[in-house]
């Protein structure tokens, strides 16, 4: 994900995630499971927008959160194919679930002299924390909804963003509903 692409789309946060779907998978922590999951997307020429894999609460299992755009009926069929994989315990599209979503970003911004104050102002507004304070740059850490991150990044001059690392979206359904 280049920094340029989301910048232009950041301001259109009102559109429902530009048809992005958030799929959560509960999988066995086994070698090859990531490839098997990725191949369900790649065999159709689909691109995964973001992917987060990490250990689940239960030992021996992992949680994957995939965001992907595409025709909803095709995605529905792909989710069935994901669920069919022996290592996948369940695969659920949470796009319309009652859920909490968040993402974290690290933004390295070039700033010297007066521009530093502008950057710090933006950081303060978005509750971002300065985690590296160098002579010619700052690293900001920010978290929240992906739209919030998009909006913040869009406020910086494109050439001042030296590097951008986003974690990708993670999601959890509210109350005792299983994600």
């Amino acid at each position, binding site marked *: 994900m280049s920094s340029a692409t989301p910048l232009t789309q950041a301001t259109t946060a009102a559109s429902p995630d530009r048809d992005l779907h958030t799929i959560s998978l509960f999988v066995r922590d086994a070698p*090859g499971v990531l490839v098997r999951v990725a*191949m369900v997307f790649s065999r159709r020429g689909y691109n995964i927008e973001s992917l987060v894999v990490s250990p689940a609460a239960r030992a021996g299992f992992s949680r994957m959160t995939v965001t992907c755009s595409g025709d909803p009926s095709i995605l*529905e069929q792909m989710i069935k*194919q994901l669920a*069919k994989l*022996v*290592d996948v315990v*369940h695969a659920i599209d949470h796009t319309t679930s009652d859920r909490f979503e968040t993402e974290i970003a690290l933004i390295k911004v070039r700033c010297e002299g007066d521009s530093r104050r502008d950057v710090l102002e933006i950081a303060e507004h978005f509750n971002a924390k300065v985690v590296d304070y160098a002579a010619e740059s700052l690293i900001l850490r920010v978290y929240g909804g992906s739209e919030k991150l998009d909006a913040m990044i869009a406020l910086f001059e494109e050439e001042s963003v030296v590097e951008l690392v986003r974690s990708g979206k993670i999601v959890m359904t509210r109350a005792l509903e299983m994600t």
Partner: protein
Amino acid sequence: MDNRVTTGAEKLIQCLEREGVEYIFGYSGGAAMPIFDALVDSDIKLILVRHEQGAAHMADGYARATGKPGVVLVTSGPGATNTVTGLLTSQMDSVPVVVLTGQTISPMLGKDGFQEADVTGITYAVVKHSYLLKDAADIPKATREAFHIATTGRPGAVLIDLPKDVTQGPCEAPFVDEVDLPGYTVPTHGDPEAIRQAAETLMAAKRPVLYVGHGAVISNAGKAVIRLAEKLRAPIVNTLLGKGAADETHPLHLGMLGMHGTAYANKAVDGCDCIMAIGARWDDRITGKLDEFCLGATKIHIDIDPAEFGKMVTADVAIAGDARLVLEELIPQISAGDTEEWLQSCEGWRKKYPLKYAKQGGLRAQHVLDRLHHTTGGDAIITTDVGQHQMWAAQFCLSTTNRHWISSGGAGTMGFGFPAAIGAQLGCPDKKVWAVCGDGGFQMTQAELATASIHKLPTKCLIINNNFLGMVRQWQELFFENRLSGVDLVGNPDFVKLAQAYGVKALRIRRPSDVDRILAEAHAYDEGPCVVVAEVVKEDNVFPMIPAGAPLSGMIIEKPKEQLAKPTGST
């Protein structure tokens, strides 16, 4: 001796024995040597093939004929990659096979060692599941899981990659009986509410059709299909792979549907008001142009694999479950429908559009296959290769018995027929087994003549020799202004002499008047393999035909006068 520690390879072979494996189809090589060594002391019989692709197809044919998993053992690198076509063939057609591949020692993985290939990586797309074992202690668990996964639910291909240090080193792990696979669930009995809806839908129909696929073969649902058809008074059609599940000679059976199905089967499907898929997946060879398939008809879909629901067709009622179990719960809810007018229409089509072929102008493949059906009395296991001969065999060799028709459908793998017949023969030694091949496909795996010859298998191989890749030639004639490209098999060997060079009995059919006598002679010969070469007319076409991507109503019954537009559908 008694104090000696069991090796991983010995443990593996013991696990295979516990799974009831009778045969391993294999080809040795460096990385698999510990496993081949352990086989020396086992009762499992090794069938040494001449090419790993042959081993994979033999295991597949064995599995399709017996319902038991076929097992393949090959070495690393090229040995393993040569099984990839076989894995695709089995996986596409839901056939249980377990492929064991030797691998370089685990410290060398990823370092381009001699005969190293990333075999799990190469095969992800063509397996139901796979394992790369890095610890001998995992052998019992992985083997048990592999057989469980291959044979249950929608069956498929499972691969276990075995580094040589793992098979050569000690293994003290106990045997495993139970599997623990939280991500793997197998539907059995369908949802009662969905079954009730299906019964209601079927009985509301005036023009129902039962469309039977390979799932009905796998679950042995044929008798239930017939009971349902008789009770509902509905016609039956089957796919290429569904042949034999329900007796194709039953009066309610209209034969095979689809691209080269009978005209009456396709007319029935095109004219129905309700179609029920029983273990079938609405493949593109069946539906033709999807947007125009069974317009206005209600659709019921029974499949053990829920990922098939909504893939091609979104059914009005979808039932996830085993075809036989679902039908057995459905049948008591069915009472006779008012379908006599509909059945009369179907009989009218059967009379109006019979399968036919020219009796004059040289030896015809259809004639040979029609007579093969008479020679065998429909009681032989028939395997086919892929192409025109396959479609003619499907049309003329009506199948009456489950697991007696073996053909590569989904993958359409040339070279499948002959080795599959060898596997089927080993699995069913008391059965007559005929492979029907074209001259093109036969040459892809002809080296297995040696395998059949060594084991004196009474397998018969009928080669329909037109010195052409006939199906592609047919398309070039119909759709590409007869611009022939890459279809002339000039340089074919004399197949009789070729078979004789392997010590195999061989007969030749040149004239229509030879057909019955020579087929009978071959059928009666049981001392070893027998190759029958039918030298048929060079140019002939398979009809009926629905051009790829055309609707069922676009079916061609005979050769059209004018050139046809190039097909828009898949291949």
